[in-house]
């Protein structure tokens, strides 16, 4: 299980444009970091880099377990990292039940993961609907289901609350709090402050 994430001297560019250089960050179990910065500052790119979807120009991303041993990058990402991006990754033509089931199964789950997810985000009435019939907020809740349904230590969240209404923001805040209490780690790109105690890492703005 991932106990610490460390980024050292990280440099990332996108489409030939340097987003940030020499970024250092250390995130411990039970901690949350809120990434802030102007549009285009590189928040999403940083999250994608940590998830292994983007290759950094320079620098290192390391995952460590509780004893301080470095974990294999592929194994850590394939078993212990959740990435919830702008897009929900849901298939519009399939039912919510099938999509949530696939996401939980694919990412690895406990016996009761699916039921926990349904309960946590109030998905029961949505399960038999096709994803195309769901609103943006409902889709986001469905996508969030995998965070609970498939327990993984590091949550990489990109504007997770944006489409949610006040009620579900509070519910999600509660889930984040629980995740931190269970020694999870959260790295979230946000514009509004996170509703949980979190350090802030400001990527600045465009020059």
């Amino acid at each position, binding site marked *: 299980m991932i106990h610490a994430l460390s980024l050292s001297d990280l440099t990332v560019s996108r489409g030939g444009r340097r987003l940030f250089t020499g970024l250092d960050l250390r995130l411990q179990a039970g901690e949350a970091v809120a990434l802030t910065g102007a549009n285009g500052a590189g928040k999403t790119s940083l999250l994608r880099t940590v998830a292994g*979807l*983007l290759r950094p120009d320079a620098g290192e991303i390391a995952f460590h377990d509780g004893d301080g041993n470095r974990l294999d990058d592929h194994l850590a990402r394939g078993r212990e990292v959740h990435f919830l991006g702008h897009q929900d*990754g849901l*298939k519009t033509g399939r039912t919510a039940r099938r999509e949530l089931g696939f996401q939980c199964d694919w*990412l690895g789950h406990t016996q009761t993961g699916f039921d926990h997810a349904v309960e946590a985000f109030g998905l029961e009435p949505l399960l038999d609907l096709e994803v195309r019939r769901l609103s943006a907020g409902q889709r986001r809740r469905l996508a969030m289901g995998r965070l609970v349904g498939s327990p993984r230590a590091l949550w990489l969240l990109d504007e997770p609350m944006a489409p949610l209404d006040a009620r579900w923001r509070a519910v999600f805040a509660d889930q984040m709090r629980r995740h931190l209490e269970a020694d999870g780690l959260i790295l979230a790109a946000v514009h509004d402050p996170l509703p949980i105690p979190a350090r802030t890492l400001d990527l600045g703005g465009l020059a």
Partner: protein
Amino acid sequence: MSRPVDAEPRPPGLRGATRVLLERELDLAWSGGGGPLLACGFFACLTAVLPLAAGGDPRTLSPVAGGIAWLALALASLLSLERLFERDLEDGALDLLAIGHLPLESVVLIKALAQWIAVGLPLALTAPVAALALGLPVSLAPLAALSALIGGAGFALTGALGAALALGAKRGGLLIAVVVLPLFIPPVVFGAGALERAASGQSPAPALAFLTAYVLFAGVIAAFAGAAAVRNAQG
């Protein structure tokens, strides 16, 4: 402080993850506007139009029946390739597939396998009908189906590679056709060759062996090159 061991997530296991993804892919292939039926319909239309274009005389038609059937098969196999990766890239599902237990190489192979089952298998069942309609002797119908089935695996694998290479390109469907059709030449040659040899009383085994060798080769290339292309499109 850390979680007790039995609260750790249970990974689905490699076989479990393979099954889960395969089921999803098959579901998507069949539910997304009936892609397999469309491919079979296209295949049947092509083989129905060709005799009209070339004249219905069996003496001109039957010597080339195997070749025409295989050409039509290759074209029909192109149809649903765009769906294979492009939709997953557009809706963000490809990111999800990239952080699962299975490496991307396996994801590409499983998607190709689903393509083979969903599209290659129905086409292989249509192939004997089409070939007979073009004037192939009835005794060769089982061989037409078998060779189309083996060839379908090759089409699915190289097709998956082409679909991965065309990711993110505008008019990707057309690009896939241009990238993939040249790679379809060997299976067309071997497949039509098998039918031709059998029609002239020789054993089709060598041609089928070449066809199978192509499939194995395509499997290795498609897995690695396809995964690299997907990573490139995500980055």
